[in-house]
C-alpha cells in the first residue's frame, strides 16, 4: 500500500503551510493558533509514527521487568496474582512481537521489487509455458491483494459499487494467525 500515513501527512502539512495558513485572517488569533497547533501535532505524528511500535514494545519490556520485580518484592498480597498474570501475558505478547512494522514494510518492499523484476524478466521473453503459469500466479495474488487495497480505501468513496467490497476487518487475517 503506497498511500500511507507518511505521504499523507507530508502533503497535508504542505497544503496547510502554503495555502491554508496564509489565508487565515491574521486578526483571528484563535484560528491562527489552532492552525499552527494542527500543523505541530501532524509534524509530531509524522516523527512518532515510524517509532511508535518500538516505543510501545520498549515500554512493555520494562513494565514486564517491573511487574516481575514488584511481584517478587511484595510476596503474597491481594494484587500480586493479577500482576503475575498480566506480566506473563506481556511476556507472551513480546515473544510474538519480534519484528516491528518498519521491518515488515521493508521486507514487503524488497519482495515486491524482486517479484516484479522476476515477472518483468520472464514475461518479457518469447511466450512459453512458464509465462502462462506466472501470469496465473500473479493475477490470482493481485486479485486478493487489490481487494484488500480497495477495501482499505473505501472511505474515499471511489468505488461505484462499494457494497460489493467486503469490510477490511473481515479481510485481514487476525494477528495471531499471521505466520
Amino acid at each position, binding site marked *: 500500500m503506497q498511500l500511507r500515513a507518511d505521504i499523507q501527512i507530508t*502533503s497535508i502539512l504542505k497544503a496547510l503551510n502554503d495555502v491554508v495558513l496564509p489565508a487565515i485572517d491574521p486578526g483571528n488569533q484563535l484560528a491562527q493558533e489552532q492552525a499552527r497547533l494542527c500543523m505541530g501535532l501532524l509534524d509530531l505524528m509524522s516523527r512518532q509514527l515510524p517509532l511508535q511500535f518500538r516505543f510501545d514494545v520498549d515500554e512493555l519490556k520494562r513494565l514486564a521487568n517491573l511487574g516481575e520485580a514488584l511481584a517478587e518484592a511484595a510476596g503474597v498480597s491481594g494484587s500480586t496474582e493479577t500482576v503475575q498474570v498480566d506480566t506473563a501475558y506481556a511476556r507472551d505478547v513480546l515473544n510474538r512481537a519480534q519484528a516491528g512494522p518498519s521491518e515488515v514494510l521493508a521486507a514487503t518492499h524488497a519482495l515486491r521489487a524482486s517479484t516484479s523484476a522476476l515477472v518483468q524478466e520472464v514475461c518479457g521473453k518469447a511466450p512459453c509455458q512458464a509465462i502462462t503459469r506466472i501470469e496465473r500466479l500473479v493475477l490470482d495474488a493481485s486479485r486478493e491483494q487489490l481487494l484488500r487495497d480497495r477495501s482499505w480505501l473505501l472511505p474515499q468513496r471511489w468505488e461505484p459499487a462499494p457494497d460489493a467490497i467486503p469490510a477490511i476487518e473481515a479481510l485481514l487475517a487476525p494477528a495471531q494467525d499471521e505466520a
Partner: protein
Amino acid sequence: MHAQIDKNKPSAQWIEHLRERYPTEKEIDRILTRRLHRRSGPGYSPLALQTLVEGVRGLIQARHGEPFEILEPRWLSGGASKLQMAFVLDWHRPEVGRERTRMVLRMEPAESIVETSRLREFQLLLAVRHTVPVPPVFWCDDHGEFLPYPALVYGFADGVTKPSAATGNVTGLGTRLPEALRAQLAPQFVDHLARIHALDHEKAELSAFDVPRPGTQAAEWMVNWWERVWEEDCQEDAPMMRLAAAWLRRNMPSVDKPAIVHADFRVGNFLFTEPDNRISAWLDWELGRIGDPHQDIAWTTSRAFGSYDERGRFLVCGLIPEEDFYQHYERASGRRIDQRALHWYKVMNAYSMVTLTLSTGYRIACNGKTHQDVLVTWLMGISYMLMDELRNLIEQA
C-alpha cells in the same frame, strides 16, 4: 537485498539508461528527461499572483509587441495538474481591434502528475480550432523563458463541467448528470470525438509530434512512455504492473491510419453552456498525440469516468450506455471499431492511469513538487481500483 536507485536524486547514467531502454517521441523524451534532471532541485514554493502577472507581461511584450494592459488577475481552481490564473487583457487584437479579452494562463508546477509539453498542447489547440469547440489559444512559453515554469495563454471559455445540482468527486470524476441533460450532451460528445479523429493531421502544424509508422509503432511508443514513467517514479513496485507491461508488448495492435487523439476525452474535460446545453469547449489536450483512435474510445469507457443510470446500466462518462456509444461513434466516424485493439487500449489506458496516480502522484508529493500535493495524494487512492480494472481486463483477454 537490492541495490536501491535513489529516484529522488537520479543519476545521469540512470537517466540515459531509461532513455535508451524506452524510446518514444522526441518531445516526450525531452520533457521526461528535463523533469529527471530537475528532480533533485527545489520543490514548488507558493508564487505571488504578481509574479505570474509580470511573467505574462513579458511573454505578451515579446510575442505581441503592441501596447496592452493586464487587468483583474485571479487564481483559478480545477484540475489536478497545472496552475491557472484568469485575467483580462486590454489590447489590440489582430483582425478584431481594441478588445478586452478574458484569458487564462496555464502553467506547470515544478513537476506535474502528468508531465507533458506545453508546446504540444499549444499546437494541438490551434490544429483543432475549426473542428471542435476549443478555447482560442494565444501564446506559449514552452521553455519557461518568461514565467517560472513552461506555460501557455488561452482564451477563457464560458460554460460549466457539471450542472450545479449534480454530485461528483474532485476533477469531475463520478459526476452524475440528469437524464434530460445526458440526452442533449451525448450526441455532441460522440460527434466531436469522430470529428477529431477525421482531422487530417498532415495538414496541421504539429512539429512537436512524431507520426508513427502504420503498424505497431503507435502502440509501442505508448508502452515505452508509460513504462518509463513507472520506472522513474514508482516507490513500491508491483508484479501486476510488470505483468501488464509484458502483456502489452506481446499483444500490440496495428493502426493503418494514425489520427489525432485527444487522450483525455471524458466528462470533466468539456464545458457546456447551461441555458442551451451546448458543448462550448474541449479542454486538457496535454496528453494528445498522433496515434490510434481506439485509445480515445477506450479511455472514455473507463469505469473511473462513468456512472450508472436509474436502471443500473453503466454509462460511458455518465452520458450514454456503452453499446450505444460504440454504435453512434461508428456511424459518425465511418470507422470500424476493432474489439481486439479496443481491448488493448483499455489495458494500456488503465496501465497509464495507475502509473500517473500511484507512482507519479507519490513521487511528486514526496518531493513537494506541486501547488496541490494534498490533491495528488488524495488521488493515489483511486489507483487500486484502477489496477484491479487492469487485472480484470487482462484476465478477460
